[in-house]
């Protein structure tokens, strides 16, 4: 069985496919719906942060890859997503149209931007430590584990000063690597609460269709029904991503082939790590 898995926001700008009619059509759609010039990586109307540009470009890139993949693989048996990969994943399973996915990505990105005024947030990427010491670290520094990607790959999120201290301590207690990154919003943490009302309004404003491919959610590894999609979209922005559990659940469902439908290969590499480590 085939699974299309959709990664979250890319770390750098996806390179648009020059001369490709699908890419051109999607770029025109992004310009019309979100006011973003993908080729020039600049706003045509309004103002948005660099992160919103990356979020919208990332979804457009996933949609482009999805179009090509569907032509030779057909519809997938299963769809999975990591973080903001949910919007393109909803297109893959027929619950949203491409234009709606681009619009909702842009609206969510813009709705999260004011959180920058609440405080300076940052991410801490920690590899090599297990979950228990990181949970203790998170408690001690009043920060959150935002991504449980594998048994040794985690993402922390919280106030910048707290993340800086936690990242330093992670290195001191044996992390192989620990680095800090800036971010607009404290994604996948309860710190998103100030914009929850606005996000809820956005998600409730779309008409979702019944998924034609099963869509596994990364929080509890159940398949989303049409009615559950909007509540999940809000909940997932305020709760951690559990990728390892999701990958193992997908394998138990009988998935043998995974396609990463987006830029980068982080999900493929997490899967490789999980497979090599084995066990449950």
């Amino acid at each position, binding site marked *: 069985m085939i699974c299309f898995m959709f990664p979250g926001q890319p770390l750098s700008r996806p390179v648009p496919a020059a001369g490709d009619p699908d890419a051109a059509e999607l770029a025109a759609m992004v310009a019309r719906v979100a006011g973003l010039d993908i080729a020039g990586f600049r706003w045509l109307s309004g103002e948005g942060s660099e992160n919103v540009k990356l979020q919208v470009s990332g979804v457009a890139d996933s949609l482009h890859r999805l179009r090509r993949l569907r032509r030779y693989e057909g519809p997938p048996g299963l769809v999975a997503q990591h973080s903001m990969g949910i919007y393109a994943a909803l297109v893959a399973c027929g619950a949203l149209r491409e234009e709606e996915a681009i619009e909702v990505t842009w609206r969510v990105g813009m709705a999260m931007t004011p959180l920058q005024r609440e405080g300076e947030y940052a991410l801490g*990427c920690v*590899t*090599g430590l297990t979950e228990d010491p990181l949970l203790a670290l998170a408690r001690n520094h009043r920060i959150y584990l935002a991504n449980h990607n594998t048994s*040794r*790959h985690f993402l922390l999120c919280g106030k910048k000063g707290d993340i800086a201290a936690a990242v330093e301590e992670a*290195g001191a207690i044996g*992390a*192989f*690597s620990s680095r800090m990154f800036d971010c607009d919003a404290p994604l996948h943490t309860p710190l998103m609460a100030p914009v929850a009302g606005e996000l809820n309004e956005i998600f409730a404003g779309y008409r979702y269709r019944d998924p034609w491919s099963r869509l596994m959610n990364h929080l509890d590894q159940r398949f989303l029904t049409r009615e559950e999609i909007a509540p999940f979209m809000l909940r997932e922005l305020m709760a951690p991503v559990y990728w390892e559990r999701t990958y193992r659940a997908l394998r138990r469902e009988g998935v043998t082939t995974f396609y990463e439908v987006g830029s980068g290969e*982080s999900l493929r*590499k*997490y899967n*490789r*790590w999980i497979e*090599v480590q084995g066990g449950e």
Partner: protein
Amino acid sequence: MKQLIIDSLRIEGLSTHDIETDAPLFGEGLGLDSIDALQLVVGMENAFGVVVPDAAVGTKVFQSVRTMADYIAQHAA
């Protein structure tokens, strides 16, 4: 060493002949990243019993196939 890289990282369609001994492994070379680095650390530990303690040492060790081989030669029991 080249086979260890291919096996650890499960790189399909790549043979040992495709990897240059002195080419950079990260960035422009094989394009490896921090997820790959930790996978190589585990691979080296399992195959040779050699420990790469942190990313700072890893940056030096994983410059190329040659630097990996040199590190193993110096640290293998």
